């Protein structure tokens, strides 16, 4: 990851009156694996198409190696695309599909042959040269699409949900494969997906998008551990998101009691969103619990149990390897590291409760149930309790 290769400056895209991209500012480094992540309709594919040259932004600039390329048509850009559902040429066989770009570039036949053969070897499709693309499986078609793009030795490869049509097993294999190819060839990958797991597993940098805006840019670890707002916290992994008040640096109040945390830099008594990851919660006996609640449902997920716990109307998702049957009364313990504080945003209150897991779905809508009337049963945590081990996931 070295110098900057692509930069989007204030890119806005409107179709008719609908704004699908709103002031996108983003730079992409050479040899970086960058993922645009977001739900459908968030603008990630539009962003990719702007970089590919298939769309021109309504306003804003696209820079490639410092040069403005807004008006450069796709065929003149040193960028190749792996399309959603591949878009392979049905009238050509595997070999000719891969050779397509090289033939357009009018390379000598010997070089075409050498490069196509080499590329088919890289994507493990040796021996498939004369197959028709309709005779290939999804995974094979996908690899032809990658080979067809990479054989042109682009500076940047754009991938639009390339694994979306594959089954889970194959998808996992191809994730590894793509990462390997990217590192081996040292090409910048810009990858579009709505699958957060895929994004976290493959990327150097993740760009989380929603409603045409960038919500957060960062390394996968940072995005997961330090989400900027309720949308990111909810979209990346599972999150319990609570209303809280930042009392002072390193101290937050929610459910009517004070918790130590590791965040600072907020206003005194600023209302905030509190994120607690389900795997960070320790279940303890009710006497030792900072908060106590009743288990309403348990779902076995293989590695862990998804346990829904009702804290006076607000339901949390807790992921634990221990089995606590529905109806049992438990306590929980949270260390300062387990609590992440975010500024309020337009997304506050929209995400992060798990009431839909239970039959008493409407309960959460009753604002009277929390937090004031539950403060009596919790007490100040002691220092050593905070050292308790976290993460049984």
């Amino acid at each position: 990851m070295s110098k900057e290769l692509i930069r989007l400056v204030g890119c806005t895209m409107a179709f008719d009156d609908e704004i699908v991209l709103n002031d996108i500012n983003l730079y992409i480094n050479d040899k970086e694996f960058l993922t645009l992540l977001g739900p459908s309709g968030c603008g990630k594919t539009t962003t990719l198409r702007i970089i590919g040259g298939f769309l021109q932004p309504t306003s804003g600039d696209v820079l490639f190696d410092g040069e403005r390329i807004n008006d450069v048509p796709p065929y003149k850009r040193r960028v190749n695309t792996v399309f959603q559902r591949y878009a392979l040429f049905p009238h050509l066989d595997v070999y000719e599909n891969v050779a397509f770009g090289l033939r357009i570039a009018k390379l000598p036949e010997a070089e075409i042959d050498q490069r196509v053969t080499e590329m088919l070897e890289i994507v493990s499709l040796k021996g498939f040269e004369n197959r028709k693309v309709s005779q290939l499986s999804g995974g094979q078609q996908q690899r032809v699409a990658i080979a067809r793009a990479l054989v042109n030795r682009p500076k940047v490869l754009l991938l639009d949900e390339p694994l979306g049509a594959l089954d889970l097993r194959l998808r996992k294999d191809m994730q590894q494969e793509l990462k390997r190819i990217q590192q081996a060839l040292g090409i910048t990958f810009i990858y579009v997906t709505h699958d957060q797991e895929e994004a976290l597993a493959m990327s150097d940098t993740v760009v989380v998008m929603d409603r045409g805006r960038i919500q957060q840019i960062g390394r996968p670890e940072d995005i997961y551990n330090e989400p900027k707002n309720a949308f990111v916290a909810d979209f990346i992994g599972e999150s319990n998101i609570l209303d809280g008040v930042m009392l002072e640096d390193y101290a937050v109040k929610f459910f009517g009691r004070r918790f130590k945390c590791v965040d600072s830099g907020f206003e005194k008594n600023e209302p905030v969103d509190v994120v607690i990851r389900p795997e960070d919660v320790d279940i303890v006996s009710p006497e030792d619990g900072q908060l106590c609640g009743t288990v309403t449902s348990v779902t076995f997920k293989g590695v862990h149990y998804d346990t829904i716990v009702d804290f006076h109307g607000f339901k949390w998702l807790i992921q634990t390897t221990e089995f606590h049957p529905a109806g049992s009364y438990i306590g929980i313990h949270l260390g300062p590291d387990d609590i992440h504080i975010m500024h309020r945003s337009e997304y506050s209150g929209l995400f992060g409760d798990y009431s839909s897991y239970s039959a008493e779905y409407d309960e959460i809508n009753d604002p009277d149930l929390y937090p004031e009337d539950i403060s009596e049963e919790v007490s100040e945590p002691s220092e050593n309790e905070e050292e308790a081990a976290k993460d049984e996931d």
Partner: protein
Amino acid sequence: MKTKRLADPYLVWMAIFTIVPLGIVVYFAFTDSATGAFTFKNIVNIGNYIPIFVKSIWLALVSSIICMVIGYPVAYYIAGRSHKAQRFLYMLIMLPMCISFLLRTMAWVALLDDTGIINGFVTAMGLKALPLIRTNGAVVLGMVYNYLPYMIMPLYTVIMKIDPRLVEAAQDLGCSNTQVFRRVVFPLSVPGIISGFTMVFVPAVSTFYISQKLGSSGTTLIGDVIESQFKTAYNPNLGAALSLVLMVLVFICIGIMNRFSDDEEVATV
């Protein structure tokens, strides 16, 4: 099992109106007109009509090629418009077909006749009347005019169905617009060309009305000969033999054309 029976009415229809008549044609073709005895005489006599066969096929071929040259850009243009515009333009193409085929051909007679509308202008300007009607050109014009929609329809359908992402993929791989057309759009529209060609060629090769009205004795086509065997010469046996040979020739032509499209089947998916 239930859906199987849905085709039954059609099978009955086919049996009564296609298979049986075909059997009758074959029977007539191999029997003597006077005695009704089995004979190859009719088939042998066809030898006399070879030049007419050649001429029919030649004019139909020329018409089909002209239809393709005119029809392809039209179909390509329509397929590239908005849905609303597509529907309107498609309707325009179909509109002439709502008027009787005979009437449309008669209209061309009125236009091209020695004393017709066009020559009326020409002579009014003090020039000599042009030999427009009773030429090969007039016959081809009539065929192209009447059968052009049959070329445009399948072409439009095939071109419209070409995945726009294939065009983008080609651009992405370095194709300029002309290269996109030559390397992707045109190869993928070959099935449309084949079926359009077939749909123009088959009726054109067996037509009789167009050549009678717009042609002369020199442009008598095989369709005219067949018609005359039934209506004026009263030799239905020879007519049947001619029909049979024409049918075989048409099948051969279709077979040859479809050989080109064998590999392109996927394009219509």
